[in-house]
């Protein structure tokens, strides 16, 4: 299958500061790729290059086989972008913002109501955006990003600092877009979100790409395969850890369940953050 997005050997420097150092990856239609990395890792710079806003110092970007360029309306018409910073027309209503952008994409018979309903903004559609909360603005930005049913969707920290309801709405929209066949590139420093949404994750640190794989494969490769069992009752509680790679692991678990009062059993698989730290030597919240 032809990749929806193909990036090869991308580099970018701000003066002497190398922000991105020769990274490359590809994204298939319908796939969600989570770009994980701390602040300053080069995630936003990568998105700016991928959307054509920045011209890479080296490397190439192809969207659906076409070279990415800011001056190519054909390519730009097939992508959707949701930036980290809010950039809406504050003096327009939510509905006016969407209608305005639909005209720029040349969309005819555009159904604003359905899109507004999808991001839970129907009730406030005719209020000026300046009166919207942060979550409402982000949901409107998400709606704007998918206005043209893009083939490739770039989302830069789409749920950063949002309330749980807004975050859930946005995550649902992301899943729907992927199910529709859009390739989604999502940057985040929220490892839980990346784990929840992404088919594959990529670790980016100091402009370098460290690993690109499915969350399960990464956990299998880097995580501890063990279960932690809490036994007892009242104040007499003890914990036992059973390594799952041991040959008799199944027998041990069965024995504990049969002979003791088991309170809880938890798998001890590594989180993406643990793996990120193990690979890069640096935390995600830096």
């Amino acid at each position: 299958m032809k990749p929806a997005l193909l990036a090869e050997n991308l580099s970018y420097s701000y003066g002497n500061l190398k922000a991105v150092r020769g990274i490359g990856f590809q994204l298939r239609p319908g796939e969600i790729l989570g770009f994980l990395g701390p602040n300053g890792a080069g995630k936003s710079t990568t998105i700016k290059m991928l959307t054509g806003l920045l011209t890479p110092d080296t490397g190439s970007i192809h969207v659906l086989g076409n070279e990415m360029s800011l001056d190519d309306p054909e390519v730009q018409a097939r992508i959707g972008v949701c930036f980290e910073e809010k950039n809406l027309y504050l003096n327009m209503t939510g509905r006016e913002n969407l209608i305005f952008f639909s005209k720029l994409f040349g969309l005819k018979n555009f159904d604003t109501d359905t899109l507004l309903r999808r991001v839970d903004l129907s009730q406030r559609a005719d209020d000026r955006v300046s009166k919207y909360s942060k979550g409402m603005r982000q949901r409107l930005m998400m709606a704007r990003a998918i206005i043209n049913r893009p083939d490739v969707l770039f989302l830069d920290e789409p749920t950063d600092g949002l309330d749980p309801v807004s975050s859930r709405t946005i995550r649902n929209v992301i899943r729907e877009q992927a199910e529709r066949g859009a390739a989604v590139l999502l940057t985040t420093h929220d490892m839980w979100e990346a784990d929840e949404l992404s088919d594959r994750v990529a670790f980016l640190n100091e402009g370098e790409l460290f690993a690109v794989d499915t969350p399960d494969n990464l956990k299998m490769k880097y995580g501890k395969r063990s279960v932690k069992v809490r036994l007892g009752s009242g104040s007499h509680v003890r914990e036992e850890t059973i390594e799952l790679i041991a040959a008799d692991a199944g027998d041990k678990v069965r024995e504990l369940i049969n002979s003791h009062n088991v309170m809880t059993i938890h798998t001890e698989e590594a989180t993406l953050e643990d793996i990120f730290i193990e690979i890069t030597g640096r935390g995600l919240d830096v």
Partner: protein
Amino acid sequence: MNIRRVWSLVSGDLRLGFRSPVILWVLIMPFVITFLMQVVFVALFDPQPRICIYNSGESAITSVFERIEGIRLSHAGSPAELEAYIENNNADLGLVIENGFDQALRDGRKPELEYFFSGGSLASNRIVISLLVLDVLREMENREAPVEVVLHTGDEEEVVPLTRKLIPAIVLLVLIITGIFVPAFLLVGEKEQGTMKALLVTPVTVSDILFSKALLGFTMTVTMCFITLMLNGALSGQPLALLATVVAGAVVCNAIGLIYGTLAGNAKTLYTLVKSLNILLVGPILFYLFTGLPQWIAKIFPTYWFIDPLYSITLKGADFSDVCFKLAIALVVGILLGIAVVPMSRRMQRKLAE
């Protein structure tokens, strides 16, 4: 560049424009500036002599004064009212015309006529009014002036009233403020709100954005200048030559506005640019005020090439053929400035993304 996308951008700006204080100011500016210049400024610097008359009988003197242009005439209902008028400096001269004044004048009885001058009246007005009253009385006596007066001004040119002298200045103000501010403010607004980035990741190109701002700026500038000319009664002479001048001026000012808009990252920088560089734009005016300065220096300013035609048409009665060469140069200057915007827009795009 795509006309449909440009039109979509213009319609978006129009929708937002009526919610923006800067655009609203541009829309009302011709009315405000015309009012300020023609009413307040002229009233301060070109005051007309004011006469107040109390006519106790049916003297024809009142109707003679009513026919005279260039004075302001008011009527008092009683001598006390006239006295109050003069004391409050609401008139320069008060005249009390007694019953039978006209008949006494015709009979050669030399009736007494008392002048009540306001202490606050200008000496020049007192002289003008005194001579005027004598002229009026001579007319009422059916006597002709003993001499034929031929008027000569210092530079042998037509005497131009101050209200007309101000027209080029008013139009220039509207041209510069609307022509420069509208495109510059619209561009800076997109940058400040971050919407420029959002536009660039749609099929819209930088050229579409720049052209849409210039188009809206151009349309508003030409419209506002025409409203200004109409309000000041300046369209009767050479409307086509004025239209051509305003079009050339709008092209130059819009190009400068685009340069300001691409250079400035926010409104504060834009205002600083405008404040520090606008002296270069209105510079040619200095050469009209101080005619002793070497006039060739004025031609260095890009705005000279439409300011001079504007001045020539409105004040010297020049027609299109007299100014077409300068207007052609103005258009070339505008196009060259527009071309200079291209590399600046690339720099702006890179700075925006970084």
